[in-house]
């Protein structure tokens, strides 16, 4: 016996409306591939280029709690803003972010990262300096690599000192794609 799709989605909507979920997620199609996105009551907590929920749910449960459900409706605003971004109609996101568990230099770096504007790039060293520690370029690289909310926290805009792309959690092809979309690469 399978659960009819309309019954299943009615339950998922009701669960999201109930306020009982620690986190809701959905898979959002994009031109850099399907993205798994998750929101909590604090805001957007995760974007993953790996859309397989089983790879993400355990980590999400450790962060937010075990009451996690796929609930497309809860991701409506996130989906809308990402769609607009990929359509070239949005250059900044108006989404609250759930950055719980992050502190100190990591949080300072992510706050500075959020200020790097659409279409611009900065180097790892520059971002380190803006976060108060010009010698910490390598540590900034680590923070970028562990960024839980890529695209919205634009780690794709951070490049090597001579402009080379260096690396990206989602693969260099995606980094290049996002920078071209923003007009930062020709």
């Amino acid at each position, binding site marked *: *016996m*399978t*659960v009819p799709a309309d*019954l*299943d989605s*009615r*339950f998922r909507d*009701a*669960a999201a409306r*109930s306020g*009982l*979920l*620690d986190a809701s*997620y959905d898979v959002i199609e994009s031109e850099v591939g399907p993205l798994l996105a998750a929101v909590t009551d604090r805001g957007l907590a995760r974007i993953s280029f790996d859309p397989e*929920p*089983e790879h993400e*749910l*355990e980590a*999400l*449960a450790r962060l937010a*709690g*075990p*009451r*996690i*459900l*796929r609930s497309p409706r809860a991701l409506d605003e996130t989906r809308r803003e990402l769609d607009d971004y990929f359509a070239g109609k949005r250059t900044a996101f108006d989404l609250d972010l759930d950055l719980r568990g992050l502190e100190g230099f990591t949080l300072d770096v992510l706050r500075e990262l959020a200020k790097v504007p659409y279409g611009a790039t900065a180097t790892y060293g520059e971002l380190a300096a803006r976060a108060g520690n010009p010698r910490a370029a390598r540590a900034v690289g680590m923070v970028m690599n562990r960024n839980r909310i890529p695209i919205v926290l634009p780690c794709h805009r951070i490049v090597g000192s001579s402009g080379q792309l260096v690396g990206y959690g989602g693969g260099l092809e995606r980094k290049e794609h996002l920078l071209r979309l923003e007009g930062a690469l020709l």
Partner: protein
Amino acid sequence: MVAVAPIPPFETFYAEHAPEVLGLLRRRLGSDRAEDAFQETFLRALRAYGRLRHGERLRAWVLTIAARVAIDAHRRAGEPTEELPEIPHLDGRPPYEELAFLTDTLPPKERAAVVLRYGYDLDYDQIAAALDSSQDAARQAASAGVRRLRRRVT
């Protein structure tokens, strides 16, 4: 230390048990009424999920909640109810069978609490969620049931 099953993400729990829960509710209530009951069952489970201390016997737990939801639906409709949840079993005899002949004269709530506690070995927080009552009330129902049984046996 005894390894205890961790609590799975609710999505995993829901995906695993939703078809069986719907099957039970359809048998009890028919297709139409089963839909509301399905939603109510998983919302009750979700409400109690944050209080679970481990992920053991979640199947028996959610089927018990479903059976209680079906009983409530029958009651609201003024229909006669079976008080003891029918819990399909995977193999062998269901654990409550040995208790059934002892407990079938107990008041319904005490019977459900005794069977869930001693037949299924569920914790009181799980029993409370299944009976839609407090943990204290679940504990009291189970111990009242056991006292009543003792008086009868001795």
